């Protein structure tokens, strides 16, 4: 690859640019098929409740009503997206069985000739629910006596026998004992929405003994494989077509609409369209988790961070979806791009009665970066350094051991900070200007 590059490195025009800016791009839900039915969901109005009964009699009399689907209609009524990579246990229901764990949880799918008929029938389904106590705060959820959201007796996802994803390097407590300063901070974030312009949706079409599903998923095979598991049909009976996504940001890695729309197409023999409304996108689809992150750092008088202890809680909501995986990614990044020889991380995936959370841009790292980089300024102020100097002093280099025991081999934090300083006209010291990410003489500094 030593020859000069011809095409890589050129700003050729994005293939979908003209279609998008002229409004001509066709999105998944823009298609129409003869005889297409519309699916709308009956959802829990309560945050936590026992389901006593479902009365469909009035809904069935709405003109245009075609059929209803309940839990008993779903061949394998479990939605556990990470089961594809061996993550257990199965926990979420495609349609609720005896309990609902968040406001908005799907209970009954209504299929009708028009969207209006589907909405009218949804409004006429009578639910008999017994409200249960609910919990909304990650640390409240871990206290004895808290309402239990899961079916296994506590409110944490279990990582190979541990209630949290752990990282351990060196001896944090010994380093705290010899540190000149202890700097502590608690950082919180509220949940946020992916806010795509195009809401989540699909159309499932029966075709020659197979089902073609037009979808705006970010991951066609995640959607196909999960649908195959839930419907208990071989994957080769399913044909998924995607390709244009009107905003993903991680929200369309969930595969929540395809299985039930395909089941409805199977049961009715007709094309079925299931597209989230804007309020479903905001109130029902996954959000980014709320986070609470406790940081405790041991720092020397000259500003070197010799120990960092991180205790993080991500609010997974009522079901875990992709969030257990986010905590693992968090754990691999929660010490930041700094060379810290003693690190202890406990990252908890906590269940509450909130709308479930899942993947979102920056998966497990965005809120860690917020906490860490505000904390770095706190440390700088404590030891009397400026924000640039504290980061240059502690920046990781190639050959350093990261807390998860991977050697850094592509670190360029120093060079990136030098470029930013030049961009904004911040004057660096001669020493900072001369620094590089090249391996330290003598390799990883170890315990320091």
């Amino acid at each position, binding site marked *: 690859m030593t020859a000069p*590059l011809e095409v*890589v490195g050129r*700003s*050729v*025009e994005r*293939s979908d640019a003209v279609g998008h800016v002229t409004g001509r791009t066709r999105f998944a839900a823009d298609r129409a098929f003869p005889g297409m039915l519309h699916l709308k969901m009956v959802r829990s109005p309560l945050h936590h409740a026992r389901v006593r009964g479902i009365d469909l009699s009035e809904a069935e009399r709405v003109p245009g009503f075609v059929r209803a689907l309940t839990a008993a209609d779903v061949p394998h009524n479990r939605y556990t997206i990470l089961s594809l990579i061996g*993550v257990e246990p199965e926990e979420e229901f495609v349609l609720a069985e005896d309990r609902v764990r968040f*406001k908005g949880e799907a209970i009954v799918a209504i299929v009708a000739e028009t969207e209006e008929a589907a909405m009218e029938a949804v409004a006429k389904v009578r639910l008999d629910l017994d409200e249960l106590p609910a919990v*909304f705060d990650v640390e409240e959820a871990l206290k004895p006596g808290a309402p239990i959201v899961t079916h296994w007796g506590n409110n944490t996802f279990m990582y*190979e026998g541990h209630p949290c*994803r752990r*990282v351990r390097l060196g001896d944090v407590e010994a380093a705290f004992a010899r540190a000149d300063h202890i700097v502590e901070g608690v*950082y*919180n974030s*509220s*949940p946020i*929405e992916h*806010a795509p312009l195009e809401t989540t949706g699909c159309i499932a079409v029966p075709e020659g003994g197979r089902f073609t599903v037009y979808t705006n*998923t970010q991951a*066609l*095979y*995640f959607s196909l494989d999960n649908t195959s598991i839930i419907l208990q049909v071989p994957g080769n009976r399913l*044909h*998924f*077509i995607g*390709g244009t996504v009107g905003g*993903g940001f991680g929200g369309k*890695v969930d595969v929540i609409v395809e299985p039930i729309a395909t089941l409805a197409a199977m049961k009715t023999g007709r094309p079925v369209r299931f597209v989230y409304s*804007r309020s479903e996108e*905001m109130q029902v689809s996954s959000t980014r988790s709320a986070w609470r992150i406790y940081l405790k750092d041991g720092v020397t008088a000259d500003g070197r961070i010799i120990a960092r202890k991180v205790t993080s809680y991500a609010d997974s909501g009522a079901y875990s979806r992709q969030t257990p995986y986010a905590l*693992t*990614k968090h754990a691999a990044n929660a010490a*930041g*791009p700094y060379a810290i020889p003693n690190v202890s*991380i406990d990252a908890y995936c906590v269940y509450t*009665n909130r709308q479930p959370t899942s993947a979102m841009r*920056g*998966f497990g*790292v*965005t809120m860690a*970066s*917020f906490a860490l980089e*505000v904390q*770095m*300024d706190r440390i700088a102020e404590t030891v009397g350094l400026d924000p640039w100097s504290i*980061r240059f002093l502690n920046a990781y280099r190639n050959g350093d051991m990261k807390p*998860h*025991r*991977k050697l*850094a081999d*592509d*670190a*360029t*934090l120093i*060079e*990136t*900070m030098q*470029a*930013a300083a030049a*961009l904004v006209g911040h004057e660096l010291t001669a020493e900072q200007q001369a620094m590089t990410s090249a391996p330290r003489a003598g390799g990883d500094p170890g315990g320091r």
Partner: protein
Amino acid sequence: MAKLRGTGMAAVNYPTGMNLGGDPSQALVHATTSGSFVVTLSATDLGQGLRTVIGQIAAETLGVAYDQVVVDTADTDTGPHDMGTFASRATHRVGNAVIAAAVEARKALLDVAAEEFEASVDEIELDGHGNLMVRGVPARSMPVAEVASMAQFKYGRTIAGRGSFMKPRSEVDPETGAMDPDSTEAHACTVAEVEVDTETGEVTVLSIRSAYEVGRQVNPALVQGQITGGAWMGMSHALYETTAPYYPAPDHSPRDFSEYLMPGPLELPEIDCVVLEMPSSNGPYGVKGIGEMTANSPIPAIVNAIYHATGVRIDSLPVTPEKILRGLDARRP
């Protein structure tokens, strides 16, 4: 009451890919008799420009013009398996798979041309504009379309290639957290400038200026697009958005964009960036992923700038005017 200005910074890294379940992508490439190369995938373009950059990587490796490459993707009946578009993985994983497929297809093309020209394969070259020739002998030149037709009608051969790339599964040690979860790390350093109105608690972001190190830019305009969009999204997370305005209470959650606040065009600050290229050892042409990370460093940079302006350290997001006013009140003697 006053409008106070401040500057804050943040520096971050961000991993490319996440392979704790194993992370493979496949690609197929074949030549048509009309002179195109078709890249067949099942990866999805989210609007970030995946089809475009994959076309560029294929054209580069094949040695043909960008407009000779057609990217056919996102159909599970035709496209080979791909994990999906997330974790800043697609350009890295799919790009590597496409390079492997394109190398194989290019060799098949050169074999046919060599036979036709009665030359050895290493004497044949592509001019990057759709022609094959014997090196140093411009008279012995032929369009790719003609060689592809000959492969079909004269030699009975395919001009095709298969490619796959997989970062193998890494198990996490449950005691120590030891793992190899990603392929490389990209870097960013952001400086934000804000103005805080101490009467209303409102924050105006004046500028977000960043340096990014992304390995290699396949398409600089698309990298710039990610940086600009991410700066806006980070600013929005820092100051505006939440689905639980009274968190942790779940009440009054928004139902639409009139209730879910985000900054509009009038709130957009000056956004500027420089991009460093320090190629990774394992990405296609040295690529690192930039898809997710661009919203990250703007958040703490803005929060640190608010502290610099006002002396109020906010440690919960979003930073609402109420939090700033309460912070200012607490500082009054």
